[in-house]
């Protein structure tokens, strides 16, 4: 036994190691508790009826979220239709057309800022802006336009990343045989970036599904089933109010009491949707990175 073999026992080492493990355990336990609890209580109010019918109170009380599911789908589709072209377009502009200048710095700063604004402010903004501009009251359209601003930064950033991974040699090859810029972008770069754009779309769907505060002020809380009497009704529905799954969850939870279990059932549905989206996003991202 000498200097080399006298093992120093550092108390701080042991304490810190314990705290590190404890933190990880607590964090994981919290997640596990969330999932287990939602599943357990969610199953209580769950039934086929719950997912396949919309809520109504006459002639008898029925609890169902089909109306909300449809509203959520509407919002997802419209938001993506607006945000994806603009976002991809902005990303293309930033990477392919604009030179590093004051303007690009401003655009990047603006995108960062947009990403940091909390949803409640988007909600307040949406409730006045789209009313002023389009005379929209509580409506799905209003909610979608608000959300498209929210997800714009995500789409721009991810698409930018994807575009940057396209090797310069592709561009040079195309330009070298006389292709014009937009033509080259459309036929060479964009196809390469489909995976990245897809990833951003899936991530955005996740955000849209989870959003609540912004929609509360813009899309409202209506939960009835759409009444499609003609083809154009499909489109005019967007002009009417529509509460999404998250908003409905909040309604049930707020009312509490016997309706609490429906809040959990809605939460269970949301959780499954979110998990599925997560899986898809990871698959898409893996494909994206393999390029």
């Amino acid at each position: 036994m000498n200097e080399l073999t006298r093992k120093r026992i550092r108390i701080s080492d042991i304490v810190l190691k314990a705290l590190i493990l404890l933190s990880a355990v607590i964090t994981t336990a919290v997640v596990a508790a969330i999932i287990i609890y939602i599943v357990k209580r969610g199953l209580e109010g769950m039934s086929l009826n719950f997912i396949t019918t919309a809520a109504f109170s006459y002639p008898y009380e029925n609890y169902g979220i089909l109306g909300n599911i449809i509203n959520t789908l509407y919002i997802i589709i419209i938001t993506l239709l607006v945000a994806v072209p603009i976002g991809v377009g902005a990303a293309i502009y930033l990477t392919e057309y604009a030179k590093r200048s004051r303007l690009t710095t401003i655009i990047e700063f603006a995108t960062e800022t947009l990403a940091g604004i909390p949803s409640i402010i988007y909600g307040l903004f949406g409730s006045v802006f789209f009313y002023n501009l389009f005379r929209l009251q509580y409506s799905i359209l209003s909610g979608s336009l608000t959300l498209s601003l929210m997800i714009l930064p995500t789409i721009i950033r991810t698409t930018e990343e994807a575009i940057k991974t396209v090797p310069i040699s592709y561009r040079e090859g195309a330009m070298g045989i006389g292709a014009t810029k937009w033509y080259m972008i459309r036929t060479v770069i964009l196809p390469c970036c489909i995976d990245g754009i897809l990833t951003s779309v899936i991530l955005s769907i996740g955000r849209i599904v989870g959003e609540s505060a912004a929609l509360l002020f813009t899309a409202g809380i209506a939960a009835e089933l759409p009444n499609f009497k003609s083809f154009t009704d499909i489109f005019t529905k967007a002009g009417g109010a529509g509460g999404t799954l998250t908003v409905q969850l909040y309604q049930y939870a707020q009312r509490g009491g016997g309706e609490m279990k429906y809040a959990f059932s809605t939460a269970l549905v949301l959780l499954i949707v979110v998990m599925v989206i997560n899986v898809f996003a990871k698959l898409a991202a893996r494909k994206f990175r393999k390029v």
Partner: protein
Amino acid sequence: MEDTVKLTGTVSVKKSEAALIKKTSRAVRKNATETVMKIVLFICGITGVASVILITLYMILSGAPAIAKIGIINFLFGDTWYAKKGEFGILPMILTSITGTTGAIIIGVPMGLLTAVFLAETAPKSLRNAVKPAIELLAGIPSVIYGLLGAVLVKPVFYYLEELIYKDDPTHKFTGGANLASAMVVLSIMILPTIINISETAIKAVPEEFREASYGLGATHIQTIFKVVIPAAKSGIASGVVLGVGRAIGEAMAIMLVAGNSANMPALFNSVKFLTTGVVAEFSYSSGLHRQALFGIGLVLFVFIIIINIILNVILKSGRKGTAQ
């Protein structure tokens, strides 16, 4: 003489020239597309800027009138918020948002940072693969679900504690668990994924050579982590904390059901209104000056967020300078 080709009704040109003209007109059409797309893409590019400008404009336009009517001092520093009686002082809400966020940071940052250390440095691969997906899931959970679980799991705990602590206190207004303390806990869990992910990235980005030098001097793994790696990662970690602050201050739905709904001064077991919960709670039935005052709160919140964003940018910039070689 070369064959001629009829270009249009009366114009005939040589065949060779015709080919050139056809090519040029296709080129002109292509150029038109090019120019159009350039403009379209430019418009897309500045949509972000336009949006920020519009949002700022509308927040100011919607919020300023109320503040002007109520008087900025009364608004910001008034300690009573009672819409029915026309009292619109938001000091309790401002202080609540600040203390609530601070509490969330105090609880969430140490736990998040240590969990990040676990993931980045000390976890064996099997545990890491178990914990990482859990964090990702936590990040994706919608805030209303946090709110729901807060109401059902966190509130009762603080209800119990409240009964315990204040059982002999006749002056305490019992909140049934819907108070600042519950809100702090819910907020801290919400910001965990942000703190963990950003800290983990920052820790992993610390160059291996610093760790090697530390081991070479005889330091243990834990010593290396806390005395070299974390200090080296501090600007990244700080940016994560600031982002967490931004999330916490802007959060509404997650704490609606657990914060209580009275505009009291912040105290752990008081029923409180945050800037955010105040707006959400009263928006639907408000009108006139009341509604305008809510927009005023929105403006105050907006200013807070802008300040936090600026701080974030400053930290990121100084971080880049610090590690520049």
